[in-house]
């Protein structure tokens, strides 16, 4: 319909942002892992993490980790890209491993590291090989029983997707607030970072909520239920 004047920022970027964290970004592909149903991948994630807790010993933990690495190879998703977004998580695992080594010895540390790595890497692989809308469908199906307690499955799945999407926005907000504080010579004052970051996030949440409402997302069909006159902030003054 329209030619798009590409700016320099539109090209040459890596597919995964350094701050995209453990969420992963979808990497298109045709591998068996990509083609597997979203529900099956979520069940596999549940099984691997449960086995990591239930099975004791180094061999089982290493087998689980090896299976996850095999899945990466089958999916042809580069491990470096996924691990790059997990730096903070990997550091946390490292700290826990040192503590476990100190308390239980090397075998305990290896088992813990392998179990946690298997779970975290598999979670990243699930998001890297499953489009968000497919994940949304799967979550909506999984959330169907919640209808019985008055929750709409579509809204639950949308809320989870939004939560995942908001984490990188939160990181960017904090980094930009920190830079602004540094520019004003307030880099050492945590209030100068936390308060503006929090205000920006609230503003972002408000704007996203408004945009979702404008797109009619998560909205039930049928007539709008009647609202009390003071339930809408811009309807309250009548």
């Amino acid at each position, binding site marked *: *319909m*329209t*030619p*798009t*004047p*590409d*700016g320099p*920022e*539109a090209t040459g*970027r890596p*597919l*995964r*942002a350094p701050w*995209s964290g453990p*969420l992963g*970004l*979808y*990497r*298109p592909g045709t591998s068996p892992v990509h083609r597997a149903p979203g529900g099956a991948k979520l069940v596999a994630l549940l099984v691997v993490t449960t086995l990591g807790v239930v099975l004791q010993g180094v061999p089982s933990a290493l087998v689980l980790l090896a299976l996850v690495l095999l899945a990466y190879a089958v999916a042809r998703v580069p491990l470096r890209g996924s691990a790059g977004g997990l730096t903070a998580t990997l550091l946390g695992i490292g700290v826990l491993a040192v503590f476990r080594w100190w308390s239980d010895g090397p075998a305990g540390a290896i088992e813990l590291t392998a179990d946690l790595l298997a779970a975290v890497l598999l979670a990243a692989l699930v998001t890297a090989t499953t*489009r*968000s*809308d*497919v994940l*949304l*469908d799967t979550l909506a199906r999984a959330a169907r029983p919640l209808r019985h307690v008055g929750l709409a499955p579509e809204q639950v799945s949308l809320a989870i*997707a*939004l939560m995942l*999407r908001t984490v*990188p926005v939160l990181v960017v907000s904090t980094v930009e607030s920190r830079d602004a504080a540094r520019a004003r010579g307030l880099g050492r004052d945590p209030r100068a970072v936390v308060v503006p970051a929090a205000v920006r996030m609230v503003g*972002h949440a408000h*704007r*996203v909520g*408004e*945009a*979702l*409402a*404008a*797109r*009619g*997302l998560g*909205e*039930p*069909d*049928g*007539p*709008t239920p009647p609202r009390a006159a003071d339930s*809408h*902030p*811009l*309807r*309250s*003054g*009548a």
Partner: protein
Amino acid sequence: MIALDAVHVTAWSPDPAGGADRVVTLLHPLSLRLDEPRVAVIGANGSGKSTLARLLNGLVLPSSGRVTVDGLDTARDGAAVRRLVGFVFTDPDAQIVMPTPVEDVALSLRRTHPDARERAQAARAVLARFGLAARADQPVHSLSGGQRQLLALAAVLATEPRVLVLDEPTTLLDLAWRAVVDDLVAGLEQQVVEVTHDLDAAGHADRVLVVDEGRVVHDGAPDEAVRHYRTLMAARASRVRDGSPS
């Protein structure tokens, strides 16, 4: 057809002096029929033009009076009205929910395309129409500001609304992208209501509303309306320079 009948919008506002909250008027009583294919709304910041735009798809509900689109009441039939009236915001980042363009457009198509595979194909077709096919799987943050605004438009137009409301869609864009977005909007089949500070864009509308301090102070042909707005703003700038309340 969009109809506003005796619409009045008010809100509670905190008293700066610490007293009880007071009622402020965002839009004074107003009746309008909007039939023209292209309607522009111009006015100063805080004049009420965005409130007027938000009334049209039920993002803001009138305190009294009613707004209807093709006979559907925005207060009573909110979901149906939002399917008829697409809305594009100034900042595309607030509007784009998913990490990649194809996923975001697919999100808009969830209601009309239950099958995931068909939905993905339809989303790619929409992106191709907007010249974004090559960006379909890239992370949204790697797109330029103009591409993001184009994506926001694509995601809204994917559902083929009958009316498109744009709230300053080009304010954050450079001249090249303004031209792209303006051309795209000009070629749409939908009725378009555009809030804008771009007087050139307003000049191409069939009808221009000038909003000031919560009132439509001029309603007419573009040349006359833009002239009225310039006079209004020149007088205000003069008052600001003189230090009198604007």
